[in-house]
């Protein structure tokens, strides 16, 4: 058997905007990835715990509610707190340019906005996760 790229698709926050997360999850599945989908309203603690238990290569966060700076920085802090440096964090949704720069400065690998072709996100994951590089 082979090693599959494994991605957690997480949807933090209290809002119900889950279309983007589902579109991305399906595209990843079709690209042959294993996707763990945790559903709506996940706290950063739940997201990081799920990433640990499932031993994923990447956490993909979908945020359209405007709470991205807070959510991403919580996730990055929790990962650091657990000394995890081999899980890539990336995401998408409604995130203004200025904030994208901030998110990258705290270690978020990439942010994909509305209208991104899913092929681009698939290619990005393949090129940037631990397993893809081996």
């Amino acid at each position, binding site marked *: 058997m082979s090693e*599959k790229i494994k991605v957690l698709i997480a949807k933090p926050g209290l809002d119900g905007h889950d279309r983007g997360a589902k579109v991305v999850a399906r595209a990843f*599945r079709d690209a042959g990835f294993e*996707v763990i989908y*945790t*559903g709506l309203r996940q706290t950063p*603690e*739940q997201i990081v715990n*799920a990433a640990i*238990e499932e*031993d994923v290569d990447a956490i993909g966060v979908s945020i359209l509610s405007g709470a991205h700076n807070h959510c991403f920085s919580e996730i990055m802090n929790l990962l650091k707190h657990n000394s995890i440096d081999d899980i890539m964090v990336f995401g998408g949704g409604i995130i203004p340019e200025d904030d994208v720069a901030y998110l990258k400065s705290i270690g978020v690998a990439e942010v994909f906005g509305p209208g991104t072709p899913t092929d681009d996100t698939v290619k990005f994951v393949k090129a940037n996760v631990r397993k893809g590089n081996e």
Partner: protein
Amino acid sequence: MSFDASLVGRFLKGDKRACARIISIIEDRRRGYEEYMEALQPHVGSAYIVGITGPPGVGKSTLINRLAAEYLHAGCSTGVIAVDPSSPFTGGAVLGDRIRIGEIALDPKFYFRSLSSRGSLGGLSEAAVDVIRVMDAFKKEIILVETVGTGQNEVDVMRACDTTVVVTMPGTGDDIQAQKAGILEIGNIFVINKADRDGCERTLRELQSMLMMNPLNDKYETPIILAKSNIGEGIAEIKAAVDKHRIYLETSGWFSVNRAERNARAFKNIMNLKIIDEINRRLSRAENYEEIESQVKNGALSPHRASVQLMEYIEKKILHHSAE
């Protein structure tokens, strides 16, 4: 990657990340995975394993969330393994059973792991069974295993469980009929979930009459439990039924008989897979293998005739050769 003894050390101290990594190594059958199984072997055997099976959408994950909460509340360290089908075309999968896990997710005594069936040639049940053993060695006292109740793979996974709970719901009379082969025999406890829905009585009667066909057992009567998992109704009854079945197994002696058979079956399955792999590997080096394959493809040779030829080759060149 070679065997990492410090990973096992961390695992035995209860480190979740080490457990997660070892599960991946074993699930993926990475090179040398057997060494990890070997290292954990002395720690395997104390968990009680409960299989939860049933058709898509009956509420297995919802039920598991509630049942796990019940066990955690009783102080039991609890693990869940959720097996989900993967796409047979791409091998990819969306594993969504975690969605139903509520606040217990962050309980330090809880561990949840999703497994995809990977559309591979066999091996799912074997890998799942090994992952059960890893969680057992990780000192989970109760392990709940979710599978969709169709196909031989799933039945094999259920046979690796001590107690099997078959979940159905009202209005699925035909489903029960379809599942009859295999599933009805392996069910130790039946749950009609979504009992809030119409048709519950009828499903109950159908199930009762089907269970009458099972061989008579005067020591254990297979219970049928009505549940509304989304609001937690019937869950305490399910837990009590599991306890009762466990006591029956232990007092009747079946517990150890089943486990011995399970070990023997695991051994046989592992050997079968390895033998097939090895023979295929050597067979593909046979000088006329590609020739035969292309003749089968274009219809010049029937698959049966080809198999006879290759079996002769195996007999003469592979088996005979190694016997010397």
